């Protein structure tokens, strides 16, 4: 007995769809172990470059990142966590939803202190002159990497399949996953 062509086509589509679904494996994989570079390891230290800090101003140096945040930007869970933290820690208080306010915009192509993950990480940890507080120590390095990944997704620097496609709360602009990549123009004012 011959298989009807329609059924064969249906099986083929199903097989194709299943193999496509496999491509999305690990997209949202969660690590429950703290990544190695979060643990105490000898790493270069740098002074804080902003006296603005939550509560008391700390003078202890912050540890510079090892690597470039590998494993965060290609993982949708981490980027989504970064998006939640961006809201919870009130980054929006100064940067709004990326359009900028008291602080500079994050959805454009201008990066005063560099667009590389390690540079954004240092900016959050050390703080920057003229307003950006130093959050080193107040945030875990895991959280800072997640925030870094999300901040970079705001101007389309991430892959479409890991950048957030929706928001938990009201958002005026289009989803990060739908944004065009803004080629970074370092230092541009």
């Amino acid at each position, binding site marked *: 007995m011959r298989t009807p062509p329609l059924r064969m086509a249906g099986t083929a589509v199903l097989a194709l769809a299943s193999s496509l679904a496999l491509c999305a494996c690990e997209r949202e994989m969660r690590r429950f172990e703290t990544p190695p570079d979060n643990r105490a390891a000898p790493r270069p230290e740098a002074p804080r470059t902003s006296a603005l800090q939550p*509560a008391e101003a700390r003078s202890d140096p912050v540890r510079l990142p090892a690597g470039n945040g590998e494993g965060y930007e290609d993982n949708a869970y981490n980027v989504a966590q970064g998006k939640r933290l961006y809201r*919870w*820690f009130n980054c929006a208080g100064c940067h709004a939803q990326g359009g900028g306010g008291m602080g500079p915009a994050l959805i454009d192509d201008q990066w005063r202190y560099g667009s590389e993950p390690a540079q954004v990480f240092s900016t959050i940890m050390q703080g920057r002159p003229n307003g950006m507080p130093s*959050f080193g*120590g*107040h*945030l875990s390095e895991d*959280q800072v990497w997640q925030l870094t990944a999300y901040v970079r997704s705001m101007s389309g620097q991430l892959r479409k399949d890991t950048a957030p496609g929706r928001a938990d*709360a009201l958002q005026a602009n289009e989803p990060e996953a739908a944004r065009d990549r803004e080629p970074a123009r370092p230092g541009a004012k």
Partner: protein
Amino acid sequence: MMDALHDVLAPFGPQAGHVRGLWTLTLAVCTVVFAAVLAALLVALLRAQRAGAESAPDLSSLGRPEPGRRRSVIAAVAASTLLLLALIAASIFTDRALARLSTDGALRLEVTAHQWWWEVRYVEPQVADSFMTANEIHVPTGRPVIVTLKADDVIHSFWVPSLAGKKDLIPGRTATLNFRADRDGIYRGQCAEFCGSQHALMAFFVLAEPPERYAAWAAAQRRTAGEPAEGQPLRGREIFMRSSCAMCHAIDGTSAQAVRGPNLTHLASRGTLAAGSLANTPEDLRRWIADPQQVKPGSYMPATRLSSEDMDALVGYLQTLR
């Protein structure tokens, strides 16, 4: 968890009493109307002509207009109109009665709703006497309270069924609600407008107390946090200031002055945590700080990873904030 009254039918203040009166009247009218409609239906069924199982259907009524039932129809329409008008009048009188509550010497509160907790500010004529708390409102019995209602993010609704009706809090607008608690007790309140994933865990408590007890409570709330004793609490305060806690919460009298989350100056004096989600015990406080998303998924508080000793110290310090 706090044992509190949450009952529309058990009013403990004049405002809730008026609302209950209107509710009772509406229930009575609707019961009578419902019974009358059912009775009319029953009479119509009993009086309807019936044919035998074999006889041909009687279609003669299709050919002639409906029999004259004009009088009963007119009577029913008139009765419905009158009853509805009576309910409208009762509603207007209830509204007027609610507005007539004397506000002489009223206590003034400003309540701001956030996803998903209540910020409470006691507004006193002297700015230095004003103070902040969260999710727990103490009021003196017999004294009217004027609550100014605001929303920070989305629409919420302030509802303490045993004391007053609901009032919406709309972002960008200011509403007011007046009430008075006549008997001391603990009354539960709840957000009554769907406001997101944790709407259900957005409760608060109104504690009505005799005036002298209220005064003592208010005096305690005005005090800033004291210097913790050496050892564990001191270490706990250091952890609070150095971790992410201080990024969102304020403890008056310390350098933590953030207003993103609830004010914790007198956290240990409150009965519950996270807007009525947990009892305020050291174990639950620990659980809440360690992973709020497990207790209240979607709430705007991230998990705080601390070593066991650091967590003990932090919880120990927070327990001293009476």
